[in-house]
């Protein structure tokens, strides 16, 4: 298969970015999207400099930087905005699990980084998602010391509660929800953590503090508000349901009213 790739290039956080177009051929339809980018990078390194970039007066744009690691859809490192959709045209996958057979041979594919005030660009398609860590550090944990725990079977958890908690805990922290949201809201990400812990008895003692602290931190870091468009749920690679946002809202209001 062959493609024209229109890719966002940006040297660093301060530089002005632009699109560059590359032609790539000889791609197997079983190749993943990121393998296709690997091949493009091999090509760009070998060529040294692509003609389009030369026209722009650029000596060499070099290989395209993008975050990736496990390539099996679980680490959450990868995340590209492909033809206007987070993680591309296939549903409920991360970019590393997107395969070229989902594209038409000869197509022009537009590749952009996550675009959100909360995620500044580091280079090309790589963004800084450390805001997610900061939100979790505000309260996305249970304060138990190593060694302090009682026997695991002393805490009984109904099967369905454990399953629902696991549905939310499946979040990989990729940021597709934020990138997709027209408000740049991180509500689905925050809700996934708050809801997962709120469903478990171990999470209850700190539930109020957690909901308030995490929402406050999310607001402080410049993420937008939720207006219930549900776009995040559609693009979440793990299919995390917006009902968890409803639970976050309940937890937050309960905490506020008890103040």
């Amino acid at each position, binding site marked *: 298969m062959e493609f024209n790739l229109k890719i966002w290039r940006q040297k*660093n956080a301060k530089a002005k970015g632009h699109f560059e177009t590359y032609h790539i051929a000889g791609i*197997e*339809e*079983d*190749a993943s999207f990121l*393998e296709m980018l*690997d091949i493009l990078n*091999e090509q760009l*390194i*070998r060529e040294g400099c692509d003609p389009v970039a030369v026209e722009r007066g650029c000596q*060499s744009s*070099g*290989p395209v*930087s993008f*975050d990736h*690691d*496990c*390539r*099996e859809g*679980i*680490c*959450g*490192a990868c995340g590209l905005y492909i033809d206007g959709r987070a993680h591309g045209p296939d549903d409920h*996958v991360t970019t590393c*699990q997107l*395969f070229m*057979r989902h594209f038409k041979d000869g197509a022009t594919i537009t590749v952009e980084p996550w675009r959100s005030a909360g995620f500044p660009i580091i*280079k090309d398609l*790589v963004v*800084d998602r*450390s805001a997610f*860590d900061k939100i*979790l*550090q505000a309260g*996305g*944990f*249970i*304060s*138990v*010391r*190593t*060694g302090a*725990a*009682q026997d*695991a*079977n002393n*805490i*009984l*958890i*109904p*099967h369905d509660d*454990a*399953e629902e*908690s*696991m549905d939310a*805990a499946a979040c990989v922290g990729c940021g597709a929800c934020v990138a997709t949201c027209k408000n740049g809201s991180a509500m689905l990400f925050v809700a996934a953590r708050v809801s997962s*812990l709120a469903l*478990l008895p*171990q*999470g209850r003692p700190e539930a109020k503090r957690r909901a308030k602290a995490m929402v406050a931190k999310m607001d402080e870091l410049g993420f937008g508000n939720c207006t219930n468009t549900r776009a995040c749920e559609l693009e979440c690679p793990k299919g995390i349901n917006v009902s968890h946002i409803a639970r976050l809202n309940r937890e937050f209001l309960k905490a506020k009213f008890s103040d």
Partner: protein
Amino acid sequence: MSDKLISKIPAGPLETKWTRRKSEIRLVSPNNKRKLEIIVVGTGLGGASAAASLGELGYNVKIFCISDTPRRAHSIAAQGGINAAKNYQNDNDSVYRLFYDTIKGGDYRAREANVYRLAEVSAAIIDQCVAQGIPFAREYGGYLANRSFGGVQVSRTFYARGQTGQQLLLGAYASLNKEIANGTVKAYPRHEMLDLVIVNGQAKGIIARNLVTGKLERFGAHAVVIATGGYGNTYFLSTNAMNSNGSAAMQCYRKGAFFANPCFAQIHPTCIPVHGDQQCKLTLMSESLRNDGRIWVPKKKEDVEKLRKHQIKASQIPEEDRDYYLERRYPAFGNLVPRDVASRAAKERCDAGFGVNETGKAVFLDFSDAIKRLGHQRVAERYGNLFEMYEKITASSPWEEPMMIYPAIHYTMGGIWVDYDLQTTVPGLYAIGEANFSDHGGNRLGASALMQGLADGYFILPVTIGDYLSYKFAEPKTDINTPEFDEAEKAVQARIDRLFSIKGKETVDSIHKRLGNIMWDNVGMARDEAGLKKAIQEIRDLKKEFYQNVNVPGSQFEFNQELEKALRLEDFFDIGELMARDALNRTESCGGHFRVESQTEEGEAKRDDANFMYVAAWEYKGEDKDPELHKEPLKYEFIEVKTRNYKD
């Protein structure tokens, strides 16, 4: 025994050793802990759990990872579960049985005392993880559920769907976040350790490259903990994450830490095959599929040719023309032979020209009999999600055509040599999790990697490191403006400058791929003397070529993934050579290490206990010099050493 390898195994009965050691270990008072600094490198299960626990104790911890956030470490990809001797199923499980299964599974090449301690603390790991809010699978009564795993006769595996590693890592990461919020831990994401700094013979800090700015930075501490995982990516293609590497371990090795049993690497039989030469990563399919799937290749070469040209489908090949080679060769165990046997048999058939895809490196895993026998619904209940995952990746439905599978490198049992306290041969330098060598011998059992990472990080290291630090609290903070730090940084800078100066024609990946081929062909599933000698020479030649002809684009002071890869590849050359050298020395077959020269008439692995019941620990002697082998004899005082038997 080498006088440099002092294992510090406590005396006394097996079940009292850990208690005894803990009672001997000196304590550090809370006001003194505040004065002590510890560097932890790596944020997987081992690193994250250790840093969180050390922070809770009151030490000042700096933790480093190469990814953008600690939560991405490759522990996250573990699927199946975590073992623990809870005996919640009342199936007569015990600490002793978990210990015994692990020693036997490791083909009698792990330390008794370490493995017993691992089994002993396993139950507390589950308690800790539940308290952290990890949503393990539950029965309807609300109690924890268990499942069974390969090679054992009890159900002791705890799991969270097929995402157990993810959930355990998010638990450790949450504890880490708690300590970051408390101010005891400071995290340095997108930082890569590039050297270990030794002052007066003791580990005192690291040189790291800030992967965003490209600057080299110095960090000092009273002790350094390596938790950077295994070196499976030496083979280029593996189930490891793309950025997993063995560089931190190699830096420690070059600074005096002995490297143990490097040749012990695990090859998992059921991975999705390589689809062409454009691939860079392999995906594991759960071993559980072999319960009902039958493995075969065609008997006739002409059928193989037609399959490769897509002229026929597997389902069109009649029963009598299929070679169910595992059932043929191992009638007693059939498709459920152990991982190493299944892997070698698949390679044997493919090497003989019967591989069923275009690359010639794939065999069929067929469910048609199971579907006939059990019906669609019951097969779907057991394997539905795996079938979906396979179809997503390959666009082929296992309901209609058999899966194609091939073995792949998955885990490395070898690693940095550590004593019972998890301290390396360098005072103040510790190694935990997959990065050390201690618990899995020649072969790791399923669901035991997670157990070891968390045992080391939550329960063992935070205790044992105190013994060393109890002598250090009077020492001031490590000064990073000393000749030792200057020299280490200068050496790293020289490495980087050298890479940029080459300006050759080959990409880093294309050379890494060739290293992978050398490793896979000669230091893979079947190894022999001639091949290993050839590999050592080829690796050296390739390394020379790398230094003449690699092209590292861009510059140091920017986000530069090609530079990152080039620096890691330098270390993979050395690991590859060390693996080949160790494999050459170990002329027995043992666990994942199969020497063609050492097999029974039926082609089974033949261990040589008389000559090789030892840990091979290699000491670095300098660039272009042969490393020196030190032997730590393994003594089995509490269990009887037997031959692993898969026949009956």
